[in-house]
């Protein structure tokens, strides 16, 4: 029972990190059809921004979060304005161009902050662990889980209940028609890209205390996040949540039975089979594109 519970929590915990990273990607891919391979680098930027704020201003993690969101969102906005906006009609080319952006961001950070690993401190009140039905659970992991859920709520609210979200949905469904009704679709896309990047930055800030911070940390995140978005189904927030849970749980389960490396290999193998039989994802939003 204890083992089951702790495995369940490990799965949830992996899933929540996946969700954090994938959320921004899901928004950008779902709404704009842009496959952003620089997403991992935005996560990395978020982690470095946190490290910078912490080491220079002495801020603890929590007050950093809002600033980090703004900083990385600004970076995302700049990338959209300078590169991505040229490629809306060529989705495959966005893969390539954003990979180029990723290389540049990685190297820029390596030049500015050095190639050494950096460490971000866990905020004090969250460094302990909580006893839950006989299982010790690190409270920071619990916090990440809660934060991921909250962020999901915020994203849902932004997309479904705000004026910006309404415009975004209109542009997603039919860009020309939306433009005809006076929606500035270029601006909507810029802001969406910035929002998605900001979410990636937040993910970076939150994973920074758990994982080591290095310039090339993004590469693994982006592949994982991609798989989550594709399995979940493009344009479906619920799908993204479900598939983060599924992949997180799968990874934790296989890791318990075998080992971490094989677990990831098996999960990826599962993704291949799934994409083959259901390329639209498990929970595809219908009636789009």
């Amino acid at each position, binding site marked *: 029972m204890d083992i089951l519970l702790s495995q369940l929590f490990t799965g949830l915990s992996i899933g929540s990190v996946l969700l954090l990273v994938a959320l921004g990607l899901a928004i950008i891919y779902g709404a704009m059809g842009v496959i952003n391979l620089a997403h991992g680098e935005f996560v990395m930027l978020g982690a470095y921004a946190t490290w910078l704020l912490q080491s220079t201003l002495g801020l603890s993690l929590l007050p950093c979060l809002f600033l980090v969101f703004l900083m990385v969102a600004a970076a995302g906005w700049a990338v959209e304005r300078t590169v991505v906006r040229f490629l809306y009609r060529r989705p495959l080319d966005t893969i390539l161009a954003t990979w*180029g952006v990723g290389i540049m961001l990685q190297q820029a950070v390596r030049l500015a902050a050095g190639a050494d690993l950096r460490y971000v401190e866990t905020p004090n009140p969250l460094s302990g662990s909580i006893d839950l039905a006989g299982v010790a659970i690190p409270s920071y992991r619990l916090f990440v889980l809660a934060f991921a859920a909250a962020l999901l709520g915020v994203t849902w609210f932004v997309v479904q209940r705000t004026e910006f979200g309404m415009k975004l949905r209109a542009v997603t469904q039919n860009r020309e028609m939306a433009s005809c009704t006076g929606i500035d679709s270029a601006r909507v896309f810029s802001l969406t890209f910035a929002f998605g990047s900001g979410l990636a930055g937040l993910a970076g800030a939150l994973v920074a205390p758990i994982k080591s911070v290095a310039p090339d940390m993004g590469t693994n995140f982006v592949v994982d996040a991609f798989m989550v978005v594709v399995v979940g189904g493009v344009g479906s927030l619920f799908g993204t949540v479900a598939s983060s849970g599924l992949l997180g749980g799968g990874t934790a389960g296989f890791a318990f039975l075998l080992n971490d490396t094989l677990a990831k290999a098996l999960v990826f193998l599962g993704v291949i089979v799934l994409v083959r039989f259901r390329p639209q994802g498990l929970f595809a939003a219908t009636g789009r594109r």
Partner: protein
Amino acid sequence: MPRITSAAQFLPYILFCGAILAVPSIVSDPFLLNKFARYLALGLAAAALALSWGYCGILNLGQGVGFGLGAYAMAMHLKLKTSPVHTGTAGLPDFMVWNNLDHLPWFWQPFHSGLFALAAAVLLPALVAALLGWFMFRARIAGVYVAIITLAMLAVTNLLFVDQQAYTGGLNGITDLAWFEMGGVEFDPYSPAFYYLSAGCLAFFLMLGMVFTRSKAGLVLRAIGSGTDRVLFFGYDMASYQCLAFSLSASMAGVAGMLYAMVLEFASPTFMGVPISLSMVIWAAVGGRGSLLGATVGAILVNGTQGSLSETFLDSWQLILGALFILVVVFLPNGIAGLANSLGARLSGRARGMAARSAAPSALLNRR
């Protein structure tokens, strides 16, 4: 997309192959030869990608799978040749000793033979690609989803090789390799012999690719690349053609990986990593995805520039490379080859225009 064949289109290929085969008669510095041989191997990998991506529209982000399998096949053979030196006991490679294996696994046994290793480097990647291709293309998976499946396949292969430490050397890979030997020739990676091997492989596959893409099957492939529906409506068995291109491309990547392992004298899981696979995409895109030769030249140019930069400048190189790549993708989708083609077309067009004008000046005058 390149236009339909003309004899003149063979000319650049012949010139290029002649040029790379002539290099050892000019360059004698062994380190330079070694460097050039490495660039040619990477050029072959980029040409392989152009074959599936540029011609057939299969964006393979997992080109590292074929490349890595080829590299490991050769590395296994070369390791077996050298291991008694390093371990002394029953010819067991050192990492197997560290992992407490007491005898050589059965699938390592045939790699005592150099011919078997060569065959494996060519056929194994093709087999894996054929299986994956058959699995994907039967379901008419295309575009972005091919990219995702191949990316996932790359991750799976990489993780498996890292995980099976006792059989593959894990994260370190297979190191301390001997030199390849065949027909009494020893291919020291710093010798002209090895350079000729590398250049010969590249020339052979470029010519093969050229002939293949100009054949009827190649025509169908290019048709698939520019629009799948029409090909289907004409009743072609599209999946088979896609499998063919995908496997041939993997085979070429396997040979490239084999040469790469020989030139670097090791094989590691980074050979089947995401960064190198996407780098191959960059090279092909810079050189021109629609042209085998273009992609090859792209790989050689990018790697050559990178290799000739001093250590201090190397830091900013990645920045320049990223920027260059973005510029190429946004403004020059057909790469250097596309640029050369359109320049050539404009020049010949102007020449033709001049000829027409001088031939019929009165007609022009009359119109005026």
